């Protein structure tokens, strides 16, 4: 079953508290998957995330010393459907604006590969190995405007969001499933350095795969 792209929620608020929460509507359908990326000043760290009261699974985390930023990425398989509260917790009161992005899928599964690179001179590129039918979500952080998220390199994606966390953050999602293999992902900024974070959203594997079989009586 192919992946169906669902609802999106993004936020760039100033929390003024040790958590931030918002509502997000997870689409109905089998094999749901919710992904959440978060970025903010490294004056605080993200501790945990819940959706509908269920603890999300952390995929990667990185502190960026030069950028003075901190990011974390979570997923939740088979999240509760409908409108539920997404809550992200910090290790103290956060007075700086944060970046939150939540995206729902159905027909998807966890277990995808990821990229989690610190900042380096633009463009920032890396290879990722993908399963057949996968989509890729990627984002970059820079002091300067992040003006491109290419999935794969050479194919610009529309901005899923552009946020200001005292640094610039931009995310992109490709909408055409990949064939199995290795592709290069790229983020670009107008100048200076930019980070590269990415996650493979895998198509739900079907029992028995796509192989033909015969029943011998």
């Amino acid at each position: 079953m192919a992946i169906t792209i669902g609802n999106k929620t993004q936020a760039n608020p100033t929390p003024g508290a040790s958590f931030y929460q918002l509502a997000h509507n997870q689409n109905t359908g089998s094999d749901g998957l919710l992904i959440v990326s978060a970025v903010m000043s490294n004056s605080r760290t993200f501790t945990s995330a819940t959706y509908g009261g269920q603890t999300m699974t952390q995929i990667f985390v990185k502190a960026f010393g030069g950028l003075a930023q901190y990011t974390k990425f979570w997923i939740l398989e088979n999240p509760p459907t409908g409108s539920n509260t997404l809550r992200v917790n910090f290790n103290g009161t956060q007075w700086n604006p944060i970046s939150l992005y939540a995206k729902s899928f159905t027909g998807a599964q966890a277990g995808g590969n990821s990229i989690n690179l610190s900042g380096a001179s633009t463009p920032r590129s890396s290879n990722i190995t993908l399963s057949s039918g996968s989509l890729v979500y990627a984002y970059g952080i820079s002091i300067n405007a992040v003006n491109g998220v290419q999935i794969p390199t050479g194919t610009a994606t529309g901005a899923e969001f552009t946020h200001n966390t005292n640094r610039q953050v931009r995310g992109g999602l490709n909408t055409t499933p990949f064939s199995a293999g290795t592709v290069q992902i790229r983020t670009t900024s107008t100048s200076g350095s930019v980070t590269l974070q990415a996650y493979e959203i895998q198509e739900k594997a079907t029992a028995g795969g796509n192989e033909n079989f015969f029943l011998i009586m």
Partner: protein
Amino acid sequence: MDYYIINKIQLEGGEVKQNPVGYTTNLDDVESIRGDLQEFTDWAIINGPDLDAGIIDISEFFNSHENPHQIGQITDNIDGFNLNEITDINNLP
């Protein structure tokens, strides 16, 4: 269509709380409340170290400013949110 959820930032029991007051799809409305948030954010960032150290309290902001509003989130599906559309951006709840 993108729905912009507007939050009211207020002090409740000594803590900053953010409660959604409605939504808009009007980008002019979104722009018109940016100043609100900027004032709060600027104040919080400037005073962040003193706030963390307990030298000053966030109540000082609310003692001298109206409750600010900010875009709490942007979403493409508000089913189940139970929010009303904002009809007068100049008279937010």
